[in-house]
Every structure is written in structure tokens, then in C-alpha cells.
């Protein structure tokens, strides 16, 4: 890639290896780029290394005794290795953690406001930011006074995204926004995410197991397995890729297969055409 192309990426991950507790290898070789203003999907099954990759970007790894042992991560022209989560938020990168993680005892409104913690805003500025978020999430406005712990899973996912957006991020990391939600709600949440991307210009890297909906709402996708990138391409090409279809939809004469085997076979037969 040329110099100019590099500067168009808000995030560049180069050949990272991540190890937990000094012994558990979670990610062995992941490289990916997120162009400014785009939505990139990181796809793969349980334990593939999606969450670990996101956490190494947001530097939340340290609190789980994980460490990036090889490679480099550059966010907005800055190496993230020496930074902490608070620095990352100040630089405009916020992660929405897997499982939503709302503050259960705080009200919906307090949850959303807490996202602006790092910004120095006056009471009236917070109010107008809050209204801006409610415009994207009208459901949250209805439930603003409820304790977040008593809201539904979909509402909690909305709280988590709205809370992250209150920091006015340049980039969002979303970890499995579809987890445990009804298909209709998943659709609704992805629509809002796409809207945020278009109107607020926020770049998004999202980790998903729900390949179909993730690719339909992204520009580019990476498929990772056992800590390595197996395949990448534009969302459209991945959606139409036979190998992706076969693996993720489980349509195959010989039953479900490991994605690695699918790739090996196609390499043998006619080479890897991506």
C-alpha cells in the first residue's frame, strides 16, 4: 500500500499475536485495516479471536491479563501499545463490550450520560447531546427513568451504543451487538448502527457471529478462525462467496465442515479465488 492509502485508514492492525496469562495463545496472526468512515466486519465462530482482537485495539486487554506480543496496532496515526482505555476514549475510540454491560443500578438516562464522562461539557450541552442520541434511539427516551437492569436485552444494547456515542468517538468497536437478541431487534440495531455511521461519520469495526446481517451492513469483511485471518474481501463478494455460504449456511453434501478444510479443498481444486 502506498503512503497515501495508509493515511486513509483510521485503524491498521499488522500481524498481531495476543497471549493471555503468558501462555494462552488467543490470536496468532491477524492483520486488518479499517478505512476512515467505513464499517468493517470481523467474522468467526466462538473462540476465533474476535473479542481479543477488539480488546487489543481498545487496550482493554491488560485488565484481563492479556498482552499483544507481536505486531503493531496503529489508530489514527498513533501506536496504541503504550496507551490505556481512558487515553483511547480521549483519542476518540470507544468499545461497546460483549454482553452490553450496562450499569444496572443506574437509570437509562444516567447510563447514556455516563458516556460523556471524558468530555468537558456544561449541563446544557449534555442535555442537547442527550437529545441528539434520543433521536437515534427513541425507545430509550421512553424508558429514560427506568433502571437499566430492568430493561430488555435490545434496549440494553441500545443503551450501550448510545453511551459509547456520547463520547463523540471517531471510531466504534462493537462486540457482538446481535448476541441473544430476536432477529427483528438485531435488524433494528444494525439499522441504527448504519445510520450512526452515515450521519455521524463514525468508523466502525464490529465483531459478529451472525455473518449474514453483519455483511449486509458492512463495507468489508474479515473471516478469522483460531486466531488467524482466513479470508477477507468486500462485504458483497463475501456474501456471494460459495465457501462462505457453504461454511456459514452449512449447505454441503458432506455436512458441516471446518472452514479451514473448505479452503484447503478449494485450493486443491481450483486455487483460492477471492
Amino acid at each position: 500500500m502506498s503512503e497515501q492509502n495508509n493515511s486513509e485508514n483510521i485503524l491498521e492492525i499488522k500481524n498481531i499475536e495476543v497471549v493471555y496469562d503468558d501462555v494462552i495463545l488467543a490470536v496468532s496472526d491477524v492483520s486488518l485495516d479499517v478505512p476512515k468512515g467505513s464499517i468493517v466486519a470481523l467474522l468467526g465462530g466462538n473462540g476465533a479471536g474476535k473479542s481479543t482482537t477488539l480488546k487489543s485495539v481498545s487496550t482493554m486487554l491488560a485488565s484481563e491479563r492479556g498482552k499483544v506480543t507481536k505486531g503493531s496496532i496503529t489508530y489514527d496515526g498513533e501506536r496504541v501499545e503504550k496507551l490505556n482505555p481512558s487515553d483511547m476514549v480521549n483519542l476518540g475510540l470507544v468499545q461497546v463490550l460483549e454482553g452490553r454491560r450496562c450499569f444496572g443500578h443506574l437509570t437509562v438516562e444516567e447510563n447514556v450520560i455516563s458516556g460523556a464522562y471524558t468530555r468537558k461539557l456544561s449541563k446544557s450541552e449534555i442535555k442537547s447531546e442527550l437529545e441528539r442520541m434520543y433521536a437515534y434511539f427513541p425507545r430509550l427516551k421512553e424508558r429514560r427513568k427506568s433502571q437499566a437492569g430492568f430493561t430488555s436485552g435490545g434496549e440494553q444494547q441500545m443503551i450501550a451504543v448510545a453511551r459509547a456515542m456520547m463520547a463523540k468517538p471517531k471510531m466504534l468497536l462493537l462486540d457482538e451487538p446481535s448476541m441473544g437478541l430476536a432477529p427483528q431487534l438485531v435488524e433494528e440495531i444494525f439499522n441504527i448502527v448504519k445510520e450512526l455511521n452515515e450521519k455521524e461519520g463514525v468508523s466502525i469495526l464490529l465483531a459478529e457471529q451472525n455473518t449474514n446481517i453483519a455483511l449486509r451492513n458492512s463495507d468489508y469483511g474479515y473471516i478469522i478462525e483460531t486466531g488467524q485471518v482466513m479470508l477477507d474481501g468486500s462485504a458483497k463478494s463475501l456474501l456471494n462467496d460459495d465457501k462462505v455460504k457453504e461454511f456459514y449456511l452449512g449447505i454441503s453434501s458432506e455436512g458441516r465442515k471446518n472452514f479451514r478444510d473448505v479452503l484447503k479443498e478449494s485450493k486443491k481444486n481450483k486455487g483460492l479465488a477471492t
Partner: protein
Amino acid sequence: MGSEILFFFEVVVGGLLAGTMYSLVALGFVLIYKASATFNFAQGAMVFFAVLSFVGFMELGLPFFLAFIVTIGLMVIVGLSTERLVIRPLMNQSEDTLLMATIGLGYVLEGLAQAAWGVEVRRLDLGIPDFPIMFIADAIGIFISALDLTAGAVAAFMVISLAVLFTQTKIGLGLRAVADDPGAASSIGIPLKHIMLLVWSAAGVVALVAGCLWGARAGVQFALVDLALKALPVLIIGGFSSIPGAIVGGLIIGSTEKVLEVYIGPFFGGAIEGWAPYVLAVFFLLKRPEGLFGEKIIRRV
């Protein structure tokens, strides 16, 4: 008959006011519990450490207010070192680990205090007499100690300021967020170490105030450490995470233990106020484990 009822009221009011002193100690526990979900066993030692240092500074010749401010500074330093040396390294460990660490911290503080200032019992004179206020006694016939009344006023002041801090300020919001989910709080950029530092310093100041009031009554001595554990039944009744709970719990413990002591105590040969609160606490644990004001544990299934 009239004097019987009057005597009962006197017992209750005396108990309520003594209860505010329990509330004050309990407040220190609530602060730490809110931010790290840990029962801080070192709180009693902090009370002892704070008031012993305060008296020590005065013995060195510092005037009352200067000594008070220097001690506040010292408690902030204690809070700072606790955060840096104990809390931060244990941040990602289980709550049990932190609990054990606070027990250890308690012994270290007790040892430090005694090494620095010696072991003899000191007198602390706040200039407030522990005698009944005569004009109240003359007017309605109830004897109320001036020290008790002051303690009540101080406790009320501390509670109101802490309640404002928790609910009306940005730091309070951050603090409650950290208490709920430190990981999520950190993901939106709330700096955990600042919050912890603030909480431990505030707990130190509360410990100093509680220590002064208790010290003025019972003398500045090692027994203050155990006295502080009276906060345990207070918190079980009021709820570990609730500031109003600490107050109401303190009042309930204070008044019932005095009433029980006076009216039922004689049947047990007296001195039941030492253990009666714990009986009440066990009752609460069985019937309402989150306490009167504690947050119900929310768990989505």
C-alpha cells in the same frame, strides 16, 4: 406514669443520637463498598489511625484546626498509597482477594499508628461536654448529651454532602458506574484510579470525623477498632451500598440496643447491648438480606 413515658423517650433519643455515631462509621464502609463491592475491614483501623494521628499532632503543639487539616492530608496520603499499593494491583482479582487485603491493611494501619504515636490511651477534648443540655432538660424533662446532639448534627451534615456528591455530580455518576461494572466504566474512559483515590480519601476523612466523636466519648484507644465493627449490623440492616441505609441502620441499632438494654437487659444480667444488634442483624439476614435500603441484586436470566 408520665415520668415513665418521659424516661422511655429519653432512652430512645439517647439511643438515636448514639446511633448517629454508628452511622458515621458505617458511612466509611458504604463509600468503599459502593466503589469496589468490598467490605473494608480496615475501616476500623482507619478510624483509630486517623484520630490517634490527630491527637498526636495536637500533642506536638499544632492548634486544633491545623492538626485537623494536617490529619486530613495524612488520610488522603493513606488513601493514595492504599490505592497504589493494594487496590490497583488487585483490581482484576476476585472480591474475596480484596477483602483479605483489607484485613491485612487494617493490621498494618494499627501497627503504624501505634509505632508512630505510642499505645497509651489519650483524652480528646473537642470542647463539647458529654453532659445533658440543661435548657432542654428544664423545658421537656429529657436529658440529652451535648456531645450526642453535636454528633447527630455532624452526621447529618456528612450524609447530606455525600448524598449530593453521589447523585448531583459527575464524579458521583462515575463512582456509581464503577461500582456497577468497573470494566464497562473503563471502556467509556472513566479513570478507575481517580475514582478509587477519591473514595479512599473520602473514607479516610469520614474515619477521622467518626474517630473524633468516638474518641471524645470513649478515649482515643485501641478499642475504637472493634467499636467500628458495630457498623457491620448497621450495614446489614441498612444495606451495604446505601448512604440513607447507613443512617437509618445506625439509628435503629442505636435506639433498639439502648431500649433493650434498659428494659430487657436486667433479665439477662445486663450488658446485652454488646450482642443484641447482632441478633437483629441475623434476623435481617434471614428475612431481607439486601437490607432496608440496599440495592436489590438485579440479575437477568
